[in-house]
């Protein structure tokens, strides 16, 4: 009597078998190396923290999306991290509060949400990212976007596309030229996000309609946005976007969608989303934000490169493996490993090199192709 449901994995979680695990390890290393080469120091926050500190560092972080439970020792509520950015924010505001600014930190690790996101049931993901703490200037944003693109490219993403957005656009316009009631702001934001012209007009956001058309390839869209710019409240932001776009031109396709807010819970004036060919959803996003408590500006990006694994797997042909028969010369084998050979040693007479997937066999001092 076997129970087939005994080993079922919960929804949105999966095992990564050798070929996928190898791919994700390679991606992880490639991205980490790029961040490191730009002077970002790695930090490693814990998996679990007090819910209060996870939720309190940035505006708009939703503890509802985290796994939470009571800590048996402190009796306070703990949360499993769903976004490492907030933990890096905490580190910057506490242990490294005295470190010189701008402070460059990077991180990588698994994050978990209590529910999948929209259509994607995945609950556990690898998050890799870098945060530039102490600045949200155009120069900081340019550096962050550039590194994000370089990191993705090194991880194997092709034809990268960057979508710029202005996360605080509605708030800025509602305070200035296109006033809205407090209860209308949420509707207008939602319908702008869904690009639903009909519902936007019905919700009292008629003045915001032209923003829907300032969307698409950057060169055209930014002109349209500049044309709408009522009273010049956006002039500084538009100029900033142009400078960032110039910095990354040629490295990625750039589009503009000033009203996008999907996944931008805490970003301030600038946000961006990264896409690549053959990958269905976004691969990462980033932007400028403020770390609460310290009230310090910061800029950063997060990549969720799991989706690249499928692309990567077909890039890697089976690697050569050298079979070491019983009684082989262990010093020779060690030397061969040093120069890059991957070995599998026989444990008994019955071990078959072919069955174990080996491509070569050690014959005396020399590897021989099988």
């Amino acid at each position, binding site marked *: 009597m076997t129970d087939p449901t005994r080993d079922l994995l919960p929804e949105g979680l999966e095992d990564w078998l050798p070929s996928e695990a190898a791919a994700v390890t390679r991606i992880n290393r490639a991205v980490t190396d790029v961040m490191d080469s730009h002077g970002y120091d790695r930090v490693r926050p814990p998996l679990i923290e007090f819910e209060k500190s996870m939720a309190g560092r940035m505006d708009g972080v939703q503890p509802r999306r985290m796994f939470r439970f009571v800590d048996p020792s402190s009796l306070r509520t703990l949360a499993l991290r769903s976004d490492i950015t907030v933990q890096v924010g905490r580190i910057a505001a506490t242990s490294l509060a005295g470190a010189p600014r701008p402070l460059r930190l990077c991180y990588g690790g698994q994050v978990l949400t209590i529910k999948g*996101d*929209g*259509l994607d049931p995945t609950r556990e993901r690898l998050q890799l990212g870098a945060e530039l703490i102490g600045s949200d200037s155009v120069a900081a944003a340019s550096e962050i976007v550039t590194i994000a693109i*370089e990191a993705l*490219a*090194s991880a*194997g993403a*092709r034809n*990268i*596309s960057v*979508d710029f957005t202005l996360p605080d656009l509605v708030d800025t316009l509602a305070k200035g030229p296109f006033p809205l009631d407090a209860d209308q702001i949420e509707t207008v934001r939602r319908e702008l996000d*869904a*690009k*639903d*012209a*009909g*519902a936007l*007009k*019905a919700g009292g956001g008629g003045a915001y*309609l032209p923003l*829907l*058309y300032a*969307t*698409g*390839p950057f060169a055209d869209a930014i002109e349209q946005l500049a044309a709408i710019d009522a009273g010049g409240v956006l002039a500084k932001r538009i100029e900033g976007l142009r400078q960032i776009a110039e910095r990354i031109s*040629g*490295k*990625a*396709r750039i*589009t503009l*969608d000033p009203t996008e807010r*999907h996944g931008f819970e805490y970003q301030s004036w600038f946000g961006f*989303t990264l*896409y690549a*060919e*053959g990958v*269905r*959803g*976004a691969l990462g996003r980033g932007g400028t934000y403020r770390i609460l408590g310290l009230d310090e500006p910061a800029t950063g990006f997060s990549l969720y490169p799991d989706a690249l694994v499928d*692309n990567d797997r*077909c*890039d*890697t042909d089976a690697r050569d493996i050298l079979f070491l028969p019983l009684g082989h010369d262990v010093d020779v084998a060690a030397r061969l490993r040093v120069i890059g050979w991957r070995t599998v040693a026989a444990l008994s007479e019955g071990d078959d090199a072919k069955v174990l997937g080996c491509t070569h066999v050690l014959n005396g001092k020399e590897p021989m192709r099988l």
Partner: protein
Amino acid sequence: MLPFALTRPKCPLAMTKPLIFAVPKGRILDEALPVMASAGIVPAAEFHDKKNRALSFATEDSDMRIIRVRAFDVATFVAHGAAQVGIVGSDVVEEFNYPDLYAPVDLDIGHCRLSVAEPVDAANGQGSHTSHLRVATKYPNLTRRYFEGQGIQAECVKLNGAMELAPTLGLAGRIVDLVSTGRTLKENGLVETAEILRISARLIVNRAALKTDDRVGALVDAFRAACRTGDDA
């Protein structure tokens, strides 16, 4: 042409795959075809052949393919990116509320409304002092959201058609369904008591497709231009 060249060999990838355009069977389709035509999308002749059992059709003058599926499935195909573009009523867009869907163009066709209806005698009788209701509907999410807004917890019985039977047979006290003329309701002894949503057909596109594929943006512009007449946007 990336400066960060990749040294690994590249996998063979079909470069420009044809765009997939999903259209709903039934109500909206007849009205949608002229709009599609003025945006430059004309299905091949076999699309109109009633005996043809194919589900996927070619178009004239482009390599775009048209698929004909149920209205709810149009949203699902587009949200998952299996189709990049589609046409569907705003009822379906609102019901699913998929974050990966954009509804950038109101096509101003397929008008109707989503309403609450109940038996004529019940509507006159009891007041609205209830905290729990049983409702038969094809739109459980919209229904729940609407009644939540009124402080009522709605227990939804999901039906796929013939909602009007539910009250008479005691399945649910009221229904939430599409209404255009109101004739079906009347013939079944029901009366419309509240309007939840005004509905018209929308062009929907997949979020990632719009951002990564220029053809999708061009299509949105074409539909905007096609709908510009009579629209002050």
